[in-house]
């Protein structure tokens, strides 16, 4: 049987289940709140800084940035700040110095900036949750309702049925990323007015042994930067989706399937806080989700990670999950 028609069936089923509309609803509400919050904080910090400096002109970004830089340098002199915190302040300070030197205004906020910010904030928790919501019932719902018997008594080998589900899920993950981009763009355009897609962005900061390494920095346009963040988002969606698919094959109920994925997502993140110096922690998928931080130069929860290492770990998890899913799905008895 032709694979694409099977994939078509699966995509059709996911869309008709209306999960996708729930996701669109959540996205609209959350992005709306996020945009409002961002707008509000920006205005307040700007006027606070201006007030402290005793200047009326809140639009003089050079002065504000200078002030922020001084602030950071003061905090670096504070002996009570721990080593990790110190490194992240250094990164931030370095970035500000760079903005000043290159004449880039970091205080303005554009729709484009909001878009990349939104993905940076979502990539490690919100995006995985959406994907879990979408993927967790892809097999388990068929087990609960018994429709799996319909599928498995067709003249189609089991591996082909699972492949069609896997490909449909991969397409739907892409659609979720696109939905995030479109909804974020729409809402932020209404909130912040200007686009700002051509604004230059600096990327490529790295922290090596607690020191800021600026040797690889590059300037790209904000549009390119957004494309990069959303692509990294897709990698996260891809691997979380495959893990959710595996759990969905392993357990019968959708509620259990969602529960298991959520608790390993959140539990693993907690775990990584407590045992961050343990070598094995870096192979948890949880600590490797913040892929966009490698672009922006923010500090990773576990030291010594790199973009390619993290992507590699995520893809390995996806591969292992897929193998387990296929192994179990091809051989399991359908007893109910």
């Amino acid at each position, binding site marked *: 049987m032709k694979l694409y028609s099977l994939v078509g*069936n699966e995509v059709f089923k996911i869309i008709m289940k209306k999960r996708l509309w729930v996701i669109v609803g959540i996205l609209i509400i959350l992005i709306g709140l996020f945009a409002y919050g961002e707008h509000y904080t920006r205005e307040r910090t700007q006027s606070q800084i201006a007030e402290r400096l005793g200047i009326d002109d809140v639009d003089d970004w050079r002065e504000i940035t200078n002030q922020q830089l001084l602030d950071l340098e003061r905090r670096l002199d504070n002996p009570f700040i721990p080593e990790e915190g110190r490194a992240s302040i250094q990164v931030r300070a370095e970035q500000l110095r760079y903005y000043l030197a290159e004449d880039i205004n970091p205080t303005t906020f554009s729709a484009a900036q909001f878009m990349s910010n939104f993905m940076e904030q979502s990539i490690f928790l919100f995006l995985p949750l959406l994907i879990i919501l979408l993927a967790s019932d892809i097999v388990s719902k068929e087990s609960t309702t018994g429709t799996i*018997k*319909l599928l498995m008594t*067709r003249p189609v*080998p089991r591996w082909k049925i699972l492949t069609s589900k896997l490909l449909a899920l991969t397409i739907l993950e892409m659609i979720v990323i696109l939905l995030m981009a479109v909804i974020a763009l729409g809402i932020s355009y209404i909130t912040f007015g200007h686009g700002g897609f051509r604004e230059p962005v600096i990327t490529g900061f790295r922290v090596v042994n607690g020191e800021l390494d600026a040797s690889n920095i590059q300037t790209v346009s904000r549009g390119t930067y957004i494309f990069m963040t959303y692509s990294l988002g897709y990698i996260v969606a891809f691997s979380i989706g495959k893990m959710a698919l595996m759990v969905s094959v392993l357990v019968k109920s959708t509620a259990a399937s969602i529960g298991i994925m959520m608790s390993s997502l959140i539990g693993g993140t907690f775990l990584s806080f407590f045992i961050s110096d343990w070598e094995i922690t870096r192979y948890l998928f949880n600590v490797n989700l913040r892929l966009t931080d490698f672009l922006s130069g923010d500090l990773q929860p576990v030291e010594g990670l790199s973009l390619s290492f993290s992507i590699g770990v995520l893809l390995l998890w996806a591969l292992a999950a897929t193998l387990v899913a296929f192994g179990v799905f091809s051989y399991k008895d*359908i007893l109910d």
Partner: protein
Amino acid sequence: MSELVLELRNVHKAIKGKKIIKGINLELFSGEVLGFLGPNGSGKTTTLRMIVGLIRMTKGEVFIAGHSIEKDFVKAMKNVGCIIENPEMYDYLSGWENLKILASMEKGITKERMKEVVSLVGMEKRIDDKVYTYSLGMKQRLGIAQAIMKRPKLLILDEPANGLDPAGISEFRKLIQKLAHEESMAVLVSSHILAEIEMMCDRVAIIKQGEVVQVTTVKNIVKDQGIIWKIKEVQQGKKILEEEFQTAVQLKEDQTLLAFIGEDQVSMVNKRFMEADVGLLYVNKNQKSLEDLFLALTAGDEIV
């Protein structure tokens, strides 16, 4: 010529160490309806699941149209339409969308054929409604439609009459017999309703605790089924039957007479009873023959 469509060879199944099916052998030919009878938990559904490859056999082999279900799943399943246990469908889709999805997974099911089966099961009016608005009987009808739409060589139905109304059951029975006898499908149907099985099937296989204890033709059971008379003058009637029709007569507990005579003779007996004025109240076929057999064979069987 009828061909061998389904063959079970020494099929075993153990689940978590518990032996559930203990060596079933069965043959089913095209154009034949085989009733699969057995008490609750005797292993009917388990056997049917193994036949369609939903669960693996611990030991033994199943061949469908000559193809092993384990080694040649796709070729074997090309010949099978089935409903296992309940007629589950995607309830968030319409009946028609369900059929479309399932048809796309087979070869050569045309839109015309789909429309044809929809009208065969009498679902034209509701086929575009979502399945969650269907009643149990309507789901069952849709289930039957999806099972027969590819004109399978082997049709497997697990308690298909479940939820159907009397008119539905009678239509369903006619449909099954038509499929078997005109399109020479082989039909394997499990049921609890003995009268149903008796009217619909050519043969019955009775299963008890994972073993087939008897396979017999329905004709055989029905042949010595007997006729029952309810009359006022029991002794006089008994004498007439014994002396004038030379047949053995049983006087049953409920004061009815049971005799094994050919149906052609029944009207003559009735005529004689009227003449002799024995007070004839009713005359009936002995409906309990299959039930008697079933109860006798599965006596003392408890659900384990």
